[in-house]
Every structure is written in C-alpha cells, then in structure tokens.
C-alpha cells in the first residue's frame, strides 16, 4: 500500500515544558480510513493541525512523501481537505454555492469548471436543493453535509475530519456516516463518537497524553473495555449490550 501520511518521531509543545505530542510515529496508507481517538487533551486536534501545517513541531511529517514545511504548504493543503468541528467557521460565505466554489476557484479552476464540480459533488451527496440556500438558513445537519461538500469540491486526496458527528441528531449523524463511508479518499477522523468510528474506520489510533497507546484493527481496540477505560473512554454503545430498561 502506498503511504499517504507519515509521522516520524514528531514532538510538539505549546509552552516548551509539556509535550502535547510526544515522539509520535505512525503512517497511513492511501485509501485507509483511520480513527483518531482519545480523551480530551490527548492531542487529536493537534495532530490534525500539525499535518495541515497550522502548527509546526519537531520531527518529520510527510504527505505523499512531501515534507510538511512552509514552502510546501500550498501543495500539501491541496492534497488534504479538512472538515472543521464547527461548520459555522467552515461556511463563511453567504450561500452554500459560494462556499463550495471558494476552494476550487482559489486553486485555479475556471468558473465553469468550478460550477461543474459543485453540481457534481452536490448531486453525488443528494444536496442539490441546498445549492443556493443561505448558510445561516440551513439546519445543523445540512450545514455539516454542506461543509463536507465544500471539501469534496476541492478533490483532495485525503480528508481529515474533526468530530464530524458532534451535535447532530441520529438521522443526520447516520447521513454523515453513510457519506463518509461512500468516500474513496484516505480518511483520518478524530472523534469521541466511538460508534461512528466503528462504523467508518478499519483502523484506530488510541492516544493518551500525546502518545500512541494502541494502533490497530478498529474492532479489536474498540472491544477492549480495559484499554478504553484505562484511557478515559468507554466501549461503544453498540458493544455495551442491551441491559433492558423501562
């Protein structure tokens, strides 16, 4: 399998005293779907930011063999699409269409090409009716789907998602999960929603205090109650069994 992302002995600290990410090494192959899990402050979002070049630490980070360095950032960011936790920060243009066209136009596509891309992505996700809607007038679920669409319109090679299922009702959450599963790109998903991780990822990296505690098959790690509880997590609800109730 070709390597898409590689972290090689990466360290990062905000205050030069405590490492948020400490001696982190892992790699992700092309087309892999990887869940990044861990308690609050484990370093999930920091890893995403390091990968996108929004933070810089020590060690080597490669995206398709290209080092994440200032001079390479436009090239790296062209390859990686990042779905933010808060869709309001992602959807900053007035309408869904304008937001979707923002990335492709910045990357040099003509208006016609970008329009075609927008229609194709919205059609694929079944969101064509959202195209000319105002961002402030669409629901939270629609906004999250539209945020994913804005990223897909850029045709990234890998998609990074920070808590994609937060604040969604069950139906919208299921729609997002189905959409994630339909994407062929490499996926790195940071989340506390272990049920969603189980549904979308084949591999899980469990973090604690900036270090990898476990890295392997999602089902194996997410069934390990002792491991999860030792790292301030719980078994996914779907694996907890039916205890009955009124």
């Amino acid at each position, binding site marked *: 399998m070709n390597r898409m992302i590689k972290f090689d002995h990466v360290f990062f600290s905000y205050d030069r005293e405590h490492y948020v990410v400490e001696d982190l090494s892992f790699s992700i192959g092309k087309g892999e779907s990887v869940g990044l899990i861990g308690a609050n402050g484990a370093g999930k979002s920091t890893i995403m930011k390091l990968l*996108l070049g929004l933070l810089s630490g020590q060690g080597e980070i490669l995206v398709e063999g290209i080092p994440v360095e200032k001079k390479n950032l*436009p090239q790296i960011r*062209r390859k990686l699409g990042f779905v933010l936790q808060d869709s309001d920060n992602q959807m*900053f243009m007035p309408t869904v269409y*304008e937001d979707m066209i*923002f*990335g492709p136009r910045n990357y040099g596509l003509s*208006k016609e090409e970008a329009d075609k891309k927008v229609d194709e992505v919205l059609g694929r996700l079944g969101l064509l009716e959202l195209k000319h809607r*105002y961002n402030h007038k669409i629901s939270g679920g629609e906004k999250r789907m539209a945020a994913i669409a*804005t990223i897909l319109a850029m045709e990234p090679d890998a998609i990074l998602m920070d808590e994609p299922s937060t604040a969604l009702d069950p139906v919208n959450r299921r729609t997002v999960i189905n959409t994630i599963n339909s994407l062929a790109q490499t996926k790195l998903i940071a989340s506390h929603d272990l049920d969603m991780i189980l549904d979308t990822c084949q591999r899980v990296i469990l973090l604690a205090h900036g270090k990898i505690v476990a890295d392997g098959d999602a089902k194996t790690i997410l069934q390990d109650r002792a491991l999860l509880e030792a790292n301030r997590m719980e078994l996914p609800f779907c694996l907890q069994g039916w205890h009955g109730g009124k």
Partner: protein
Amino acid sequence: MDKLSHAQSELREMDALAAENSPIHRIHPLCKLLVTILYIVVVVSFPKYDFTRLIVMVLYPVLLFQAAGIPVHVCFYKLRIVLPLVCAVGLVNPFLDHTPVMQLGSVVITGGVVSMVTLMLKGVFSLMASFLLIATTPMDSLCAALRKLHVPVILTTLLLLTYRYIGVMIEELSVMSQAYSLRAPGQKGIHISAWGSFLGQMLLRSMDRGEELYNSMMLRGFHGDFFYVNVPPLKISGIVYTAVCTGAFFCARYFDITQLLGSLFAG
C-alpha cells in the same frame, strides 16, 4: 425577541433585500456605486441656502426605491438610529445666522433656518442613496465593484469579512448575554462590574473564531483576494442607467427644475 436577536434578524433582512431580483438589483454594481457616489457629491455641492433646488434630488432615491420594489418606509425604519444624528448636524445654524431670507406671513425665515433645513436634507438624501445601494447590491458585489475601482484588496476583504462576521459577533454576544441573564435574574442589562470581563471574553471569543475562520480560508487556498461570484456582467442597461442618472443629476444641479416644474403647473 431580545435586542440582539432583533439586530441579527435586521442584518439578515438586508441580505434578503439585496438578493431580490428587480431591474435595479440587476444593474452592474460598479454602475450603482458610481451613480451613488456622484449623487452624494452633487447633493453635497448645493449651496447652503438653495434648498428649493435641492428638493428635486429626492426623486432619485424615491423613484429607484419604487423600481426596486422596496417601500421607502423600510429605509427610514432601518436608518432610524442615524437619521436623528444626521439631522442634528445643522441644529446650531439658526443661532449663528440671523439674516432674514424670506417671510411666510408674519414669520421671518432666517438664513440659519434655511441652511439648517438644507443640511438636514443633504444628510437624509445621502443616507437614502447609500441605503438604496446596499439594499439592492449584495456586499460581495459591492466589494467587487470597489476592486474594479482599484480600492486595495485589504480594504475590500476587511469590509466583506467585517460585514459577514457582524452576525457571528452578535450571535456570540447574544449567547453570553443570555448566559448572564439566566444567572442574574431580575437584573436589567449587564452590571457595570461585569463589563470588563464581558468585553474581554468577547475579544477572546472573536480571536478564536477569527483564527478558525482564517485557517479554514487558508486551507482552501485563499491567498488574499476573493473570487466574487455574484457580479452580473456589465450590460448596456448599466451604461444607460449611469448616463441617464449622471445627466439628470447635472440638470438638477445647474437648472432650477423645481421652478421649471412650478411654472409648468402654475402657468
């Protein structure tokens, strides 16, 4: 609805107004911008005692409001905060200028009163024209027009993002104010002792959101300038509109149209 939510909905109403599809909305934003600037310049250039000739300038905003399908009272309602301030500008004139210029029955009208009325009209007309512009032109089209006039990109981007994020700021402020009022029942407004921390929190939240937004833009290839997508092509109608308005403004400025109309009707 509290004051902040009301402010937010008013802001969105402006977006909705600008997104309508009337003949005025369809005119190229650059034409509308140039005509508005010219209108304000012409209005301001009228001599201070010439309010009878100035009055004819009201026709431009009033007629265009009709053509755009926007009731004039909406303009006055939206401008209710600034209109009194504009009107207050000339209030000292009657005390400074006592030269009698006309007599209505036994009442002597002084130059100060006339110049005060002229100043007020100038302010009100300019505000009406500005409102007409923003009520018929989306903000990004307006910024695109400014870019065509070679206004620096940093200013247009700042204008666009400020306009866009006033709503987000109001939202944040509304959440904070609700959280405060729920823990301070019976208290009207925010107590002065909490103003400092309130503003500090507001600043920190704004910085956080600003950073997130900036990151989001950078990650999608933003390099300093927006691609404006809402700009209609420059058509012959836009050029005709600009030419007709320019001609009309200069006629109003250099000929006494009020007197002309008066003599036409009075014979």
